């Protein structure tokens, strides 16, 4: 080692750092927690919305089968899909079905298994109004497009006779974080109001024409609660658990329905006959008198080919259990269970896993 110049020394030691990092990385992955030999560990990642029921399912399943441990990371649907595509998890989970482009990127065909249903409700904070308001889809779209700007707009009054609506400015609140809740909301607005579809569209995050963004259900609810004249949208479960006031929404049959679990299951049942083989369907604006129109499935994403025979049987066993016993746990946790027709269809799909 003869008289190295400073930069050279730095580069050499930088390389040393790099190699040691790489070495550390590989040794770390080798030394992943190895439980007792007979325990099988599965990992999944994705949607945050169904996390409470998934964690209950996985822990209950572990009680029945102590040798099976399923870990689930609720890192968001988008991130879950990416991890599934890169093969770092055994299964993914998403609120919105994967699109064709994403399915095209998958090396192994991926199946969608609806697990439970969720719904989104409009919540508001209007001075002196404690009644439940009626919202047709086009009024919600008009508000979120920034076209209806006052609470005493004739469009709103028309469907809410007898409610003393003030001449208050409407403050629109939406989710700022990418979210399945926003997807369902914008999907519904796209279906009921053509201009929403062409101007804004449906996605987990969109270019909102107006409004304030709140982070998460709690962020939206907080902003609505604090801001006089505000309207926002939150998950049904969140609204129920936090006793937020929320309005009725007009469904495809023309009936104003208040979001509840039965109405959400009814929405899925309304589409049961037309659900495609791959279950990738939006169930917003569902037909049926009792159907609540802003509802959606949430999915487990399972590859059709699982190399490890042991893991394959576990996943199949779990799916069958989830569709039978698991569904009974949905309602106590405020999730809408799947309708019978969908369960029957999904049980058939399990055999596609090889």
């Amino acid at each position: 080692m003869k008289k190295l110049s400073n930069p050279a020394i730095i580069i050499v030691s930088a390389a040393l750092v790099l190699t040691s990092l790489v070495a550390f990385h590989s040794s770390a992955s080798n030394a992943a927690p190895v439980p007792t030999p007979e325990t099988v560990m599965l990992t999944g990642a994705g949607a945050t919305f169904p996390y409470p029921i998934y964690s209950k399912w996985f822990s209950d399943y572990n009680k029945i089968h102590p040798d099976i441990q399923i870990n689930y990371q609720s890192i968001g649907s988008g991130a879950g899909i990416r991890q599934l595509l890169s093969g770092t998890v055994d299964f993914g989970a998403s609120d919105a079905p994967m699109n064709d482009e994403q399915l095209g990127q998958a090396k192994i065909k991926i199946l969608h298994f609806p697990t439970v249903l969720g719904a989104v409700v409009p919540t508001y904070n209007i001075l002196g109004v404690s009644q439940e308001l009626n919202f047709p889809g086009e009024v919600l779209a008009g508000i979120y497009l920034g076209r209806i700007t006052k609470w005493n707009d004739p469009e709103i009054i028309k469907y809410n006779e007898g409610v003393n609506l003030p001449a208050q400015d409407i403050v629109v609140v939406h989710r700022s974080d990418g979210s399945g809740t926003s997807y369902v909301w914008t999907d519904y607005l796209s279906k009921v109001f053509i201009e929403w579809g062409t101007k804004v569209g449906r996605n987990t995050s969109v270019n909102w024409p107006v409004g304030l963004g709140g982070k998460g259900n709690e962020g939206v609810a907080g902003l609505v609660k604090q801001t006089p004249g505000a309207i926002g949208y939150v998950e049904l479960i969140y609204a129920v658990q936090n006793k937020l006031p929320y309005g009725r929404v007009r469904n495809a049959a023309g009936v104003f329905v208040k979001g509840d679990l039965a109405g959400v299951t009814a929405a899925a049942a309304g589409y049961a006959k037309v659900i495609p083989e791959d279950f990738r369907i939006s169930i917003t604006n569902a037909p049926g008198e009792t159907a609540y129109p802003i509802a959606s499935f949430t999915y487990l994403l399972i590859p059709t080919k699982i190399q490890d025979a042991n893991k394959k049987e576990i996943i199949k066993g779990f799916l069958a259990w989830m569709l039978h016993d698991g569904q009974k746990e949905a309602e106590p946790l405020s999730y809408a269970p799947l309708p019978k027709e969908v369960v029957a269809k999904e049980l058939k799909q399990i055999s596609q896993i090889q």
Partner: protein
Amino acid sequence: MAGIPVPTRRAAANRRAPALIQGLRSGDTFAHLITLFCAASVLLLTVALVFELYVNSTTAQHKFGLRFLTGRTWDPVSGEFGALPFVYGTLVTSALALLVAVPLGVGAAIFLSELAPPRISNALTFVIELLAAVPSVIYGLLGIFITAPFLRQYGEPFLKRTLGFLPLFQGPMYGVGMLAAGFVLAIMVVPFVISLSREVLMAVPVDQREAALGLGATKWESTWQVVVPYARLGIMASIFLALARALGETMAVTMVIGNDPRISSSLFAPGYSIAAVIANEFAEATADLHLQALIELGLVLFALTIVINGLARIVIISTTQKGSRQ
């Protein structure tokens, strides 16, 4: 930044193996290598960070080019991404934060180091250092529950009444928005300004003060005309550290800024910052281009920080020369 001065003795020692062993035994060479290793890892981390950000956003860079920096639309549905509203929101909220935090922080530091009785000074300093350790989500909650409602009910109506002729203070008042974000950031960075400025003020040699007092200066004249100018480099360093924190702050900002990517002349209006949009949309970004645009935003924030740090250095260098000429 790069390069640690290697003492010439060290270089000489490297030439002869026995000397090297001698050096290792005495621990000098060993310590040298270890610290060098640490310094190099910092450099490597920075390079790796830029490299990763760059490589993972190439599609977005090709697609938008410089238009990315000037574009005002952020539309994940149609795949149109422009960073300008986020850059604007980041700069405005950080500037607002400094506008509030610097006079407050430096003033407090002068009081604590020069004027306050030692017992009060120590107690207050302890509290301030405690504030610096509070997680940003707590400041965000403070913003949601106190700052924003206060601004909506009293602060913004007052500003509108008194300064409403300026476009800065017009439009609907939501409480949340750029002003709220600026205030919350100011509260967050003020402990840094106070804590560091106090340290540098206390490090000013006693001789300086005594000389000033000996020449007949009052206590305040000695503080303001001798001690503060002596410590100005350190004070500036504290301001730039505060600025760096404000630029990159994510959680507290996203909770109160309103998260709306629009450029509005009014401080009452909601805005958006770079760090906030990355945190908000990264997990659920399913489209490739969306993800790449978010990563490119990270690169933009990085570049912004470098530019501002560069400017800071220029300011420091120029004022140092002025000082030495006097």
